[in-house]
């Protein structure tokens, strides 16, 4: 079949073409959270509209949730207000809400897949730019703004122009100590933070299909960091095995039928694309960001670039980055001191991330002076980690073990950087101020590399700490 998955799924959900030339796209699954939805409900009510498909809408709380003390009412009055707003709105409109009391609360992009809500072939919208995460299943995951949340609530559709599709073909195999996070950081570094504007990214190739679902989610999650609103992987047996048996997954005969349907959606070997980009996984090394955009990433063995070696258009942001980070041109990134180690977020807060981190950490201690904490992406991730005894490994090493939420990925809850602290973080954004302190600094890297940094107190090669870490896949 010459068609790629993206176009097949898009056409299946296209209601009509609007006068503006945009398509009206049906949204199969709408996920909402506390930060971007209250204004949408307000607009809906101002117009006397109701939610068209509450049965296709699911809600949770993640951004503002404190991860240390979750007692209600929250200490933060504003956070408590937002919490009450989503409780009220979901109740009023008959929307299922995975709140703190449900065992299923967590970061929206973690609970969707975990509950089996996320399935291949769906269109999935959420008022959050990392909705691309769900593309790992061969779905179209769309991050939307609040006005579009209003549209989806009211009509279960939204107006959108069809993007082009770029295939990113990753050949070879990852070396030990190199992870999915490194693949996506490399792609963003190569193609640029705006290289994906107007594109959906299809991640393909043997290196991608060798990855677990959770690793694929890490890659799709950060598509938006490369400017691509949508990123996806064609569904395969790994996908079906993951979905099977989950709470909202089709059951019995319906599951078999679903698998047949899902298989039929995948891009064939002769599928056509608007662009193709090739990457070799064999030569990849751990990646670390040195600047203030996720595209300012280099391999651990490389030096921070000198301004004049950069393209003209990258220089200004690079200068700003050096100034903010307090780094100099041509310095090695390896050996940079850190103050904080953060493991968590919708990029790397899943059980396999925690397992791999614990495997590396076991028997080690967090370096003196480093604040380290691990925040499971969902209550289910936390429960599974507890069954496996992971919290003790983290605590013994000197990590703080927290409740589920977005935590230090963004400064909307009590977990924040202070002043100019330097954080080694498994999250997705190193923007100035992102982790809560306007002068705080963020180094993005894989969970394994965050552990290495926590143990040594500086950016280090994980392979030198745990000889040849076994890949989890």
């Amino acid at each position: 079949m010459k068609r790629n998955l993206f176009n097949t799924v898009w056409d299946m959900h296209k209601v009509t073409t609007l006068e503006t030339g945009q398509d009206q796209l049906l949204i199969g699954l709408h996920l909402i959270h506390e930060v971007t939805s209250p204004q949408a409900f307000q607009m809906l009510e101002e117009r006397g509209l109701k939610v068209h498909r509450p049965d296709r809408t699911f809600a949770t709380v993640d951004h503002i949730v404190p991860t240390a003390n979750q007692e209600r009412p929250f200490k933060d009055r504003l956070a408590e207000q937002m919490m009450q707003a989503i409780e009220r709105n979901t109740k009023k409109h008959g929307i299922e809400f995975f709140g703190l009391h449900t065992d299923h609360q967590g970061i929206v992009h973690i609970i969707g897949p975990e509950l089996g809500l996320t399935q291949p072939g769906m269109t999935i919208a959420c008022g959050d730019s990392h909705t691309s995460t769900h593309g790992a299943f061969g779905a179209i995951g769309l991050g939307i703004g609040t006005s579009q949340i209003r549209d989806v609530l009211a009509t279960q559709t939204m107006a959108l122009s069809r993007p082009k599709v770029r295939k990113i073909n990753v050949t070879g195999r990852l070396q030990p100590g190199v992870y999915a996070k490194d693949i996506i950081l490399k792609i963003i570094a190569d193609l640029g933070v705006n290289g994906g504007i107007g594109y959906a990214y299809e991640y393909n190739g043997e290196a991608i299909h060798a990855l677990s679902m959770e690793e694929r989610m890490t890659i799709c999650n950060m598509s938006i960091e490369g400017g691509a609103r949508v990123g996806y992987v064609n569904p395969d047996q790994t996908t079906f095995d993951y979905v099977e048996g989950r709470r909202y997954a089709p059951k019995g005969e319906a599951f078999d039928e679903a698998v047949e349907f899902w298989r039929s959606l995948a891009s064939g070997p002769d599928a056509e694309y608007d662009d193709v980009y090739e990457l070799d996984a064999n030569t990849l090394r751990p990646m670390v960001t040195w600047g203030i955009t996720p595209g300012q990433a280099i391999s651990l063995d490389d030096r921070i670039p000198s301004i004049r070696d950069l393209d003209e258009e990258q220089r200004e942001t690079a200068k700003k980055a050096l100034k903010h980070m307090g780094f100099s041109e041509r310095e090695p990134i390896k050996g940079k001191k850190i103050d904080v180690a953060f493991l968590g977020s919708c990029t790397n807060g899943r059980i396999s991330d925690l397992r791999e981190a614990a495997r590396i950490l076991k028997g080690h201690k967090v370096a003196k002076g480093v604040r380290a904490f691990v925040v499971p992406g969902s209550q289910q991730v936390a429960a599974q980690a507890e069954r496996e005894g992971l919290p003790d490994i983290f605590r013994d090493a000197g990590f703080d073990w927290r409740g589920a939420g977005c935590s230090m990925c963004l400064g909307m809850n009590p977990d924040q950087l202070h002043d100019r602290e330097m954080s080694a973080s498994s999250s997705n954004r190193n923007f100035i101020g992102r982790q809560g302190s306007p002068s705080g600094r963020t180094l993005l890297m894989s969970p394994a590399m965050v552990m290495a940094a926590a143990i040594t107190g500086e950016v280090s090669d994980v392979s030198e700490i745990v000889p040849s870490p076994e890949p989890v896949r």
Partner: protein
Amino acid sequence: MQEIKQAISHVEGTAIVVPGNDIDTDQIIPARFMKVVTFDGLGEYAFYDLRFTADGQQKPHPFNEERFSGASVLVVNRNFGCGSSREHAPQALMRAGIKAMVGESFAEIFAGNCTAMGVPAITLPHGSVQKVMQEIEDDPLIHITIDLPSSVITVGDASYTFDMPAAYRSALIAGNWDSTSVLLSHLDMIDNRASKIPYISGFAV
């Protein structure tokens, strides 16, 4: 249903320049100011951390400069509004008085959010943006008009043809940038489409 339908084909006024590439939405509105259940009052927090020190002292930033006060057109460089999808970012700018934006490029979700609020985000090539920025620097009171039907922006005596996604342009001109009512008028088609999608109809065997 209350319908919001206002054709936006023309924006004019003075401009403010915020130079720099890759200005993300965390910089436009820091996350801690998003702990709100309405967009009202966000205007005063636009670019907050770039405008104020931790103890509330003003820092040099265009939004603090008297000469730009009252500006309704924001001029920026490349990849403006990248990062988080928060509509709080364009909302904060709009509530700070911005009615249109001119830049080399805008992040995709951000541009969509602007349109959904009735704020045109138009693009010009790098060289033209530099020129426009210089003219405004030289004379912050220079008059700017953006005309959507002709795709022309006039800056003092100079005029440039701008670019913007055709769908956004026509939605603004036709006054249906607030898409809800248009989408809602197709309810039958929506339900019909939904009934044909296997996972919505439950993979009936």
